[in-house]
């Protein structure tokens, strides 16, 4: 089904749910629960927290159903609610953030050049090939290693597709701070993927 067809189906279900049709609301939950759960799991790295956040998210959505005017897609609205619930939970358990320099980026020469940096262009593989399970696991581990505030921004922007403004609203951070963390998180993850592709040559 196309994205537009999904949005139209959501609009119809939403309209029925706003008129009190519980089965229509349940159909919306069925359609969006995996994405909400996935977001919560990625952000909290806890299955128990993810399950609770998913419950809280859909309960909030149900309680505010009448206020939702449908300006945005239902999926985006629920996504933002889930992100807010996940962030609230993270704030409660957040430990001191690791220092920024712990994020590994490329190594430059003294003159700021990448000249001696071994590189493989794996960008085409990333677009064309199915994701290798081992690579998936390497990415998961690299994501888990990111300091909390960096993971949070990376997940919200690059995985969940929120805008900088939505992230700023959800986290309370400034947009320049969000962009700086996103860039450093991407560099660290790129580095981990690069290490995966170059593992054989670097082990020699």
């Amino acid at each position, binding site marked *: 089904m196309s994205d537009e067809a999904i949005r139209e189906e959501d609009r119809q279900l939403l309209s029925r749910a706003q008129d009190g049709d519980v089965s229509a609301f349940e159909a919306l939950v069925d359609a969006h629960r995996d994405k909400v759960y996935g977001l919560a799991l990625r952000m909290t790295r806890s299955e128990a927290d993810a399950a609770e956040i998913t419950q809280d998210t859909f309960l909030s959505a149900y309680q505010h159903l009448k206020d939702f005017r449908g300006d945005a897609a239902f999926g985006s609205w629920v996504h933002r609610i889930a992100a807010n619930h996940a962030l609230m939970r993270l704030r409660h358990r957040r430990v001191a953030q690791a220092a920024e320099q712990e994020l590994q980026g490329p190594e430059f020469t003294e003159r700021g050049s990448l000249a001696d940096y071994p590189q493989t262009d794996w960008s085409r593989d990333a677009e064309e090939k199915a994701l290798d399970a081992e690579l998936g696991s390497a990415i998961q581990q690299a994501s888990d290693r990111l300091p909390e505030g960096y993971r949070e921004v990376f997940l919200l922007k690059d995985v969940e597709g929120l805008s900088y403004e939505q992230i700023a609203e959800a986290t309370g951070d400034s947009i320049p701070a969000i962009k700086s963390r996103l860039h450093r998180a*991407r560099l660290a993850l790129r580095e981990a993927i690069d290490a995966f592709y170059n593992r054989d040559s670097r082990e020699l």
Partner: protein
Amino acid sequence: MKRDEALGIIERNEGAPQPAEVRMYNCKDSINLLLQFLDGEMSPEDTQHLREHLRGCSPCVDFLRTYRATPGLCKKALVAKMPKEVSEKLTEFLRSKIKSAS
């Protein structure tokens, strides 16, 4: 020199010469600016400096390609599906809440 249409570095711009006092970007400068570059938020002048550097720097072009591919690859790797028992609990929870609210 590799070429990349999406990066806007296919054609060599032989336009106006740069003033001598303008420092050329090095790789570190370029990489620090990649997010702004990809978001289209750089000034035309800075964009021009960056493209000048990229035209002559194959390692940076490779780096930019892989930097740009990173979010999509991570998104694929981090997709999660809700386990069946969690899904059943969710339905049960919402039904009980909705019932008690009505």
